[in-house]
């Protein structure tokens, strides 16, 4: 992929080190461009929705704030200036790493995000791990368990992938809290409070991952290298865990960037239903309150995290798949 980016003939091995610099610069430039585009789009998009940001500062729309209070708030936050000036000042501050102050929370956006990012990341990572385990289990069972297992797991995957988060969350609460009484219906401190939110996010994701993994596992199990491994006398377990699994992991890791995005958007729903603190919930209330700085801040941080994840998955692909490394040369 890197070769495609810089183009040209594959250079001899001695110049390989120098090729990393333009690759890195290009990649960094891409990151900066995407961040700028995301910040600009969000900045203007949220202003297109009706509603006065000065009222957001004074406790929300329809706050019946007095004329003096509104004027004061506009002056304090520079909202009395032309939009283009506001935008340039916003960009200027952004370059310095200053995301501004939240209108509604009266706190710096960075500190609001700092307080809430950890909870969301923990939720997303746990969900990704659990989803991968479920998907792997399903894929393994369906490739090795015969036709019936394959049928059942493929139905399970489709159902899981199709279920919306809010419906799944309420169903899980109904089953595990209201009926069985095993788990708390809302977030409580400690790992027990994480179980239902993680399951809600992980189940639909595992459906997607499982479908992809099963396909490539079946491919792998039917491919010549598995045949030759068997011919070498490797046991069925060795064949599966050493060869087929590695093959199946590649498309799943390619999906991880997308999965991360899906998890963050799912976090908006899950954090609200289970009353967990996190940036998903912050984002929702910020949009409702026209809290421009917080919306832009959260969107920028999520975009940054997304690009980080896709870069890491590119790297992981290269580590797992030797063919990609060879193609570089």
């Amino acid at each position: 992929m890197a070769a495609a980016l810089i183009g040209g003939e594959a250079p001899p091995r001695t110049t390989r080190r120098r090729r990393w610099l333009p690759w890195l610069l290009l990649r960094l430039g891409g990151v900066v461009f995407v961040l700028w585009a995301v910040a600009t789009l969000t900045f203007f998009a949220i202003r297109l929705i009706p509603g006065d940001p000065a009222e957001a500062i004074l406790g929300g729309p329809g706050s019946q704030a007095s004329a003096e209070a509104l004027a004061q708030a506009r002056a304090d936050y520079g909202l009395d200036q032309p939009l283009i000036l506001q935008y340039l000042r916003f960009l200027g501050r952004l370059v310095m790493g200053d995301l501004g102050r939240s209108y509604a929370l009266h706190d710096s956006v960075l500190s609001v995000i700092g307080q809430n990012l950890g909870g969301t990341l923990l939720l997303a990572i746990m969900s990704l791990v659990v989803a991968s385990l479920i998907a792997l289990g399903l894929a393994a069972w369906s490739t090795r368990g015969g036709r019936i297992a394959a049928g059942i797991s493929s139905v399970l995957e489709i159902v899981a992938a199709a279920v919306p988060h809010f419906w799944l969350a309420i169903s899980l609460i109904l089953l595990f809290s209201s009926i069985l009484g095993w788990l708390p219906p809302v977030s409580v401190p400690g790992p027990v409070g994480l179980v239902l939110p993680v399951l809600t996010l992980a189940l639909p994701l595992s459906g997607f991952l499982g479908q992809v993994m099963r396909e490539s596992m079946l491919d792998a199990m039917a491919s010549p290298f598995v045949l030759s491994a068997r011919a070498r006398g490797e046991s069925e377990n060795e064949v599966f865990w050493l060869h087929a699994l590695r093959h199946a992991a590649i498309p799943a890791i390619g999906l991880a960037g997308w999965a991360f995005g899906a998890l963050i958007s799912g976090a908006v729903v899950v954090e609200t239903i289970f009353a967990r603190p996190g940036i998903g919930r912050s984002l929702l209330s910020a949009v409702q309150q026209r809290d421009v700085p917080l919306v832009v801040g959260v969107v920028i941080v999520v975009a940054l995290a997304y690009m980080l994840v896709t870069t890491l998955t590119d790297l992981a692909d290269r580590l797992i798949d030797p063919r990609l490394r060879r193609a570089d040369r």
Partner: protein
Amino acid sequence: MKRIITPLIAIASIALLVAGCSSAAPAGSSTPVSGGTLVYATGDAEPTCLDPHVGGNYPQALVATQYLESLVSKNKKGDIIPWLATKWSEAKDGLSWDFTLRDNVKFTDGTALTANAVAANVAHLQNPATASSTGYLALAKVTGVTSVDEHTARITLSSPDSSLLDSFSQTWLAIESPTALKRSQDVNCESPVGTGPFIVKKWDRQQSVTLVRNNDYNSPPADAAHKGKAYLSSIEWRFLPDSASRYAALQAGTVDVIDNVQPDTIVAAKNSKGIQQIDAPRPGASNRIELNSSIAPFDDERVREAFIRSANVNDAVKSLFFGTAKRSYSALSSVEALGVSEPKLFGYDQKAAAQLLDEAGWTQKDANGYRVKDGKTLELDFPVSTNQSIPAEQSLFEQLQATTKEAGFKVNLHPLDLSSWYAALGKNQYNLVSAPYTKVGPDVLNILFNSAGTKPAPSGYFANHAQVKDPALDALLVKAGQVSDPNERASLYKKAQGIVLGGYYILPLYDQQNHYLLRSDVKGLRALPTVSTPTLYDTWLQH
């Protein structure tokens, strides 16, 4: 006329405590036990500031009721009763009021409650930098506060204010420590200091506010069930925005009390053992549909009446609220003593509606059955605030859309988020609208129906959505806001309501719904008769 109200003797009775619970608490030990933590889960938005002087909305009042107190309160009958003030009197000219304060009360930071504290609070509410809206509006006639002596505050007015006591009974005008108010607004929002039975200990954003008992507490309102400090040692005030998980948390025992309970949940809870219900309608206006009389077709009273006659509200309320909401025929909440109810005006009658429309010139019908006049269809735009109208209410509007169609009205429902909804109102692009308004006392009529309320504030906000412009009504409302004689006041407000209801400016639906569910081991919880927020002062846990 000088009126002196002597302090009422506290009516301490368990009967008062359970009054308001539609399903009585099961029999058990009735001796209160001290200690324990109560978990309260609110479905209202998380406040952005815990000091209700700043802004001033219902979510703030809910939590602030636990740590802030007002000069006066109300009993269940609607009479003003002593709280931080033991007595009060109005000057003969009505231009000042003297409030005598309790002389042994301290704020939880050690500052004493004095006349200067009242002055500092009024100044704080009127300072534009505080950005108060509710409190600021309530103090519109107040010109200043002076101390007559250490414990007597004199409030001076620009014109007599018959609603001053109602105003000061609201949590949005609660009295805070003047020492604490001197801190920066950010700090004061984080930890406001009052005289209440609990103290704000910490606030974990998006999660909860932790309140601990004030062990030196000595200032309950006159209708409290006990004296001295609260029974609960602490309260965890949680923010649980989703109504299904809130009810599940109550069932599972993760939380003890929930608010914002939806009709289907109330019905489910009725059949579930171990859960009690409190129905405490909010004061101020009833929930109603307002008919914009400033633009066609509702500039014609006959068309307004035709719409109201063709709307089958009763059947819709019955089927969508499962008997949890009672139909209202009044502009005011049923908790307002001066509310006037006129069921006769709002009878469902399609024939009468058709006749009225014929008279008004809407004689033709198009292919879809909608009335037409001069080539124009009888169309009505109805922006619906999805933040303020609960799902059952939104369904109700859909049912009314169907029944008014029979008469030939084409109602266009526009579900909007709060900001877009206010924008639609600001542009006068609506024929129908429904907006709640919570305020203690009948003065809410002056806000909603005085022609002054049709002029948008600088923020674009205006309260007179029906756009009633009637000089006779204005005069009645202004006078009612000034007279001190209770009988004269009542008769003026009655006449004013007659004009509003008789003019078909509004279609009353029901009280502003305010239901609480609690586990049966929660005892002694009641809603304050002022703004209907629950007070946990008398509450104890039976274990």
